[in-house]
């Protein structure tokens, strides 16, 4: 064992841990946290010179098919109990507040159409979105404000969060069920209603509101 500090050449104060050791470290950190841990945070917690990406791959393989599995949530990683064993966890089950139909639909619209404005949500559902619905989803940490849309009025947009991905076991928003089919069917296109100059003159203020113009 040479003391690396004696070596004036050595840039690193400590030896870089072996791959096996790095895997142990990543395992310990991810196990300790209930929340997904980002790659950046892993890197910052590990000794200098570690490459957590390789350790994550090794761990993912090691835990495949076990009672606990390594999952990716957006840019972060977490251990989760295997979904097929949920029936053993009655004691841990958390009663989530029952979502209203409006809330469920609004959530789905945000997820599949994000970033989406309130007017767009209303156009898709054909009814106005109550403040309470949006608030509830925000409170649950499933949606958040995205960037403002660069259109007149600069409306705010909504996007889903990584907590949403975590809750529904999605690696990324691209893994939403049926997303490809919806896109292929053109159902995610924003298709404005045909120009309705004539009956606009007839004056249906509700109409504009309803169909988002």
């Amino acid at each position, binding site marked *: 064992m040479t003391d690396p500090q004696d070596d004036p050449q050595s840039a690193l104060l400590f030896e870089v841990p072996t791959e096996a050791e790095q895997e142990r470290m990543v395992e310990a950190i991810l196990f300790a946290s209930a929340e997904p841990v980002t790659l950046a945070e892993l890197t910052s917690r590990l000794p200098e010179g570690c490459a957590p990406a390789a350790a994550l791959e090794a761990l993912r393989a090691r835990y495949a098919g076990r009672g606990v599995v390594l999952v990716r949530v957006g840019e972060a990683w977490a251990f989760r109990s295997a979904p097929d064993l949920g029936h053993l966890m009655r004691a841990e089950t958390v009663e989530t507040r029952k979502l209203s139909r409006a809330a469920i639909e609004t959530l789905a619209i945000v997820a599949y159409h994000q970033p989406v404005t309130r007017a767009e949500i209303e156009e898709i559902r054909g009814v106005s979105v109550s403040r309470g619905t949006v608030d509830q989803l925000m409170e649950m940490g499933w949606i958040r404000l995205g960037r403002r849309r660069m259109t007149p009025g600069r409306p705010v947009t909504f996007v889903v969060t990584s907590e949403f991905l975590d809750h529904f076991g999605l690696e990324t928003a691209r893994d*939403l069920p049926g997303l490809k089919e919806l896109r292929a069917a053109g159902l995610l296109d924003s298709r404005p209603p045909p120009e309705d100059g004539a009956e606009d003159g007839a004056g249906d203020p509700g109409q504009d509101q*309803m169909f988002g113009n």
Partner: protein
Amino acid sequence: MAEPAQDTGSVAERLAAEALIVDVEGFEGPLDLLLVLSRSQKVDLRQISILALARQYLAFVDRARKLRIELAADYLVMAAWLAFLKSRLLLPPDPTEQGPSGEEMAAHLAFQLERLAAMRDVAARLMARDRKGRDFFARGIPEDMTVHRTVAWTASLLDLMQGYARIRTRDDFRPFVMDRKNLMTMEQALDRMRPMIGFAGIWTDISSYLPDGWDGDPSRRRSATAATFAASLELAKEGRIEIRQGDSFAPIEIRRKERARD
């Protein structure tokens, strides 16, 4: 089986419609109602007859009126729009008329219905996924992962000593007060020298002009020497004396200047 006219439905249809009316509060707006009505056509949404649907909707609104059920404005707006759509779809196109054709309007409504149905479908699939806290779980005993941001306040012994020194010597930094006791001014030196220089016919060290009591204490001596030298310069300027110094740091000597009559 297409619905030929709005009032000739079967008993079952009428009952269903009435059930809908009773349930009107349960609809999430006119689009939702249209979607529910469209199901009675028992065809794919893409093949739905918008004209038939418009009739169904208008019939529904009509019945609601007859039963004196108040419908929200949204539903009535939709009814008006559908009535307009219906007329466009039925009448031959009027070339002078502006705006979208009946077909375009119908296509868009079909798109909206299909899209809403699709969103409902994926919403259900989403909610049916394995969910955290129900099907899979996070670590039950998370360990303390918080990054403790502690502020370590430091001070060195030097800081401490300087701090103390600062307090103990704070009084030294008072406004400057002249120490008159140990200070001789040039005026004092001039007053003293003027009467004496008349006798200074030979070169004399200016230090011999220092008054008694000012040549002992170094600070008094320093002040008196400076004052005497300054006074000497003044007298030289007036032309009363001459000054010389043999070498650097050698004694400075003065003597009376001989008058012009010399």
